[in-house]
C-alpha cells in the first residue's frame, strides 16, 4: 500500500459542507477572503472613480485601524477558546483615566496611564479566566459593565479634551513615514501578531491550548500562561485603540465605543476564528478588517444608510464564514 493510502482517514471526506467551502478550508479559508477583497477592490474601482486613489486607501485604512488592532487581539483570545467582551469597556475606562490626568499631567504620564490601565484590566480578565478557570464570557461580560460604569463614575459623565496635548493627538492624527499613525500602528500590531502566532513557540502553545488544552498541559504547555497573555494583550490593544480613536475625535467620551466589542467580534469571526477554539489566523483577521473597511467605504460612497451597511456586513459574514463552519462537517 502506498503511504498516502494508509494515512487517509475516510471520515475526513464524509459529508464535508459544500465543495467550495472544502476547497477553501474551514472558516471560509484565507483564499476566499482574498477573493472577496479583490472583488471589492475591483468593483469599487469600476464603480467610483475616486475609490482607487492613495488618498481613499488611507481613508479606508484609518477608518478600520482601530477595529483591526482589536480584532488581532480578539483573534488570539478566540484561538485559545475564550472570548473578550470587555474591549469597549476597557477602551473607555483607560482613556477616561487618561482624561482625568490631562490637567497638569505630563504626556508620558497620561499616555502611560491609559496603556497601563488597559494592561491591568486585561490582566484582571486573564487572572480570573486563567487561574480561576471562570468562563471568559461571564468574566468579560462583568468587567465590560464594571469598566464602563467606573468610567462614568470617575468622569462624572463629563467628556474631556486632549486638544492641548499634541503627543496624545499624535496617536490619531500624526504620521509615521507618510502613514497615518493609526494605520502604522495597525500594520505594526499585525506584524507582531503574525510573528507571535506564526514563528514563535508562543503560537504553537496558543493553538494547542485552544485545540486541546488537556493534551497541551500533559505535554508541558502551561495553558494558564497562554490565556493570561492573550487577555493582557487584548486589554493593552483596547487601551491603545481607545487612545487612537479619542485622539482622532479630539475628545474622551465616557459614553463612547458602544457596541465596539461586537464589531470586533464580527471581524474576528469573518477572519476565520472559530469560537470553539484552536482555529483562526492573523492573516484572516487582517483580510477581514480590510474587507469590512472596503464594504463600509463603498457603501458610504454609494450613499447607503448606516443601518443598511450593517445588514450588508451581516450578510457578508454569513456568506463567507458560515459554509466553512457548518456543523455538518465530519459527521461520522
Amino acid at each position, binding site marked *: 500500500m502506498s503511504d498516502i493510502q494508509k494515512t487517509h482517514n475516510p*471520515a475526513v471526506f464524509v459529508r464535508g459542507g459544500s465543495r467550495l467551502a472544502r476547497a477553501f478550508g474551514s472558516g471560509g479559508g484565507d483564499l476566499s477572503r482574498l477573493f472577496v477583497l479583490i472583488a471589492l477592490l475591483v468593483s469599487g474601482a469600476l464603480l467610483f472613480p475616486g475609490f482607487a486613489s492613495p488618498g481613499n486607501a488611507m481613508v479606508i485604512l484609518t477608518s478600520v485601524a482601530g477595529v483591526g488592532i482589536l480584532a488581532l487581539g480578539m483573534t488570539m483570545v478566540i484561538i485559545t477558546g475564550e472570548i473578550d467582551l470587555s474591549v469597549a469597556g476597557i477602551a473607555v475606562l483607560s482613556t477616561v483615566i487618561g482624561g482625568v490626568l490631562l490637567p497638569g499631567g505630563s504626556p508620558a504620564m497620561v499616555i502611560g496611564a491609559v496603556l497601563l490601565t488597559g494592561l491591568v484590566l486585561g490582566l484582571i480578565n486573564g487572572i480570573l479566566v486563567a487561574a480561576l478557570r471562570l468562563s471568559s464570557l461571564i468574566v468579560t461580560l462583568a468587567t465590560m459593565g464594571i469598566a464602563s460604569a467606573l468610567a462614568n463614575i470617575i468622569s462624572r459623565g463629563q467628556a474631556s479634551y486632549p486638544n492641548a496635548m499634541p503627543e496624545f493627538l499624535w496617536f490619531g492624527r500624526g504620521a509615521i513615514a507618510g502613514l497615518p499613525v493609526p494605520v502604522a500602528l495597525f500594520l505594526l500590531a499585525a506584524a507582531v501578531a503574525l510573528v507571535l502566532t506564526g514563528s514563535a*513557540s508562543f503560537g504553537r502553545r496558543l493553538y494547542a491550548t485552544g485545540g486541546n488544552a488537556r493534551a497541551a498541559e500533559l505535554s508541558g504547555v502551561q495553558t494558564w500562561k497562554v490565556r493570561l497573555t492573550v487577555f493582557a494583550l487584548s486589554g493593552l490593544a483596547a487601551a491603545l485603540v481607545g487612545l487612537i480613536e479619542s485622539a482622532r475625535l479630539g475628545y474622551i467620551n465616557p459614553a463612547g465605543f458602544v457596541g465596539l466589542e461586537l464589531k470586533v467580534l464580527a471581524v474576528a469571526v469573518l477572519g476565520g476564528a472559530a469560537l470553539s477554539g484552536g482555529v483562526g489566523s492573523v492573516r484572516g483577521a487582517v483580510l477581514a478588517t480590510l474587507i469590512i473597511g472596503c464594504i463600509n467605504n463603498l457603501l458610504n460612497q454609494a450613499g447607503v444608510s448606516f443601518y443598511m451597511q450593517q445588514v450588508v456586513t451581516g450578510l457578508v459574514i454569513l456568506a463567507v464564514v458560515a459554509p466553512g463552519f457548518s456543523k455538518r462537517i465530519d459527521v461520522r
Partner: protein
Amino acid sequence: MDMSAPLLELRGIGKSFPGVRALHDVSLDLRAGEVHALLGENGAGKSTLLSCMNGLLRPDEGKILIAGREVQFARPAAAIAARLAMVHQELVLCSNLSVAQNIWLGREIRRGGGRIDRAATRDRTRELLAMAGLDLDPDCILGTLGLAEQQIVEICKALASDPRIIVLDEPTASLDDDQVQRLLGVVRRLRDRGLGIIYVSHRLNEVLELADRMTVLRDGRHVVTRDLNGMTEDGIVSYMVGTNRAGNGFAWSARPIGAPVLEVERAVTRGRLKDASLRVHAGEIVGVAGLLGCHREELAQTIFGTVPLQSGAIRIDGHSPRLTSPMAAIRAGVAYMPADRKEQGLVLGMSVGENITMTELDRLSRLGLIRRSAARRMSLDLMRRLGIRASGPGQRAGQLSGGNQQKIVIAKWMTKPGRVVIAEDPTRGVDIGAKSEIWGALRSLAEEGRGLLVMTTELQEMMQVCDRIVVMSRGRVTGEFTRDAFDVERITACFFS
C-alpha cells in the same frame, strides 16, 4: 424472504477517495447465527467497508445484498430500517441521560398525545438488558456505569431496533480482560439467537475464541474469507501483513539494569491510591497490571503531577521533586504517554510535526522563535524511527489512522532527556504491525538507560515485553513478579487480593 440466502452479502465493493483507492473488489457474506470477524491492519480498509455497509458512504462499485435483495443505503437510518445495526468503536452515548433514555434516544416509545410511555420504556429496556445478560436499573444514569457496561448498553441500543445483523467495531478496545469476557458472552448469546454478527477487533486471541469465520483485508483488498477452525494467531497475522513482516518488537532480551530512577513509597492520594510502592531501575521495563478499578492510572497521574500525593514519597533519580504540575514532573525528568490519544495525547487539529515537537518547544526555539529547520528535522527523524505513515510533518494529526496517531503520542517523548517514562496503554486499539513498532521504540528508550512504567490492558502483551510486573488492586500494590516467575494464574490471582 429467501431463507437460504446469506443475511448480508457484499459483492465486489470498491470505493475511492480523491487520490486514494480505499477498497478494491471486496466481497463478504454473513450467515445467520455466525460471528464473522473482519480483520486487517490499521488502514486496511475496515472502517471504509463498515461505512459502506451502514450507509455513511456510498460504494463506487459492487452490490450490497440483504437476505438476497439488493439494497442501497442513503444514510445510516436506512441501514437500521433494513435491520442492520452498527455499534461504533467510540461510545456515542449521552452520559447525562439514563440507560433507558440512551437506548431509546430518537425513537422513544410513545403513548397518546406524543407523551413518552415510561412504563413501557422501562419494560422494553429490561428485556434488552436481560438479552445482553446485564442486570441494571433502566433509570440508572449512564455516566455512573463502568466502561464495559456502557459498551453493553451501546449494544442494547443497537438491539432496540430489532436487527438481524449487528456490526461491532472494536467493542473491546478499551476493556480489560475481565470485561472482555463479559462482552464476549453477550456476543455469543446474540449469535445463539440467530443474529449475524460482524466483529472487528485487533485482539486476535479473542477473535479465535469467539468467531466462526473471518475475512481479512489488506491494502483495501480482500485477502481471504475462511473458517477459523485450526487457525492460529500467527496464521491470521500472516494473512494480515502478507509477507513475514510481523516484526520483532515483542522480542525480549536482557538489558543492563542500573540504579533506581523511580521510587514510589507508600503513595496515598485522596480517594483512590491506598498504598502503592514500586521501583523502576534504569534500563528496566516494568508493567503495572490490574483490573479497571485498580487505579493504576491514578498512580501515573500522581507521578506526573496532576494528582497530589497525600502521603508517601516519590523519588526520581534519587531526588524528591515537588510534583505539583505536569511541567514540574517534566522538569524532574518524567515523560507521560496518556492512554486516551484523542482527549489527552494529541491536538488533532494541529499537524503531525506540531504535535511531535510540542514537548520540545523550548529546546527548538531561540529568543522565542521556533527554528523551523531543526523542528522539521526532529519531526522527520521521529516519524522515521516510529514508522509514522503520513504525507509529511505538515499533515493534520486528526487525518491519520489510530495506530499512527498513537505513534505520535510516543514520538513526542522520545527525545526528552528524562529518566522516567510512563506509558499508559501505548498499544491500545493498534494493529499488530504498529504494536511491534511501538514496543520497539519503547524498548530503545530502555536501552538508552531510561526506566519505563507501562500499563497495558493485555496481560499477555505485558508478559512478552516487561522485565517485571507489579500488580495493583483497588489502589494497592498486591504482587510483584520478576520475568522468570511470570505466570498468568498467579498474576491474575493478585488482581483480586
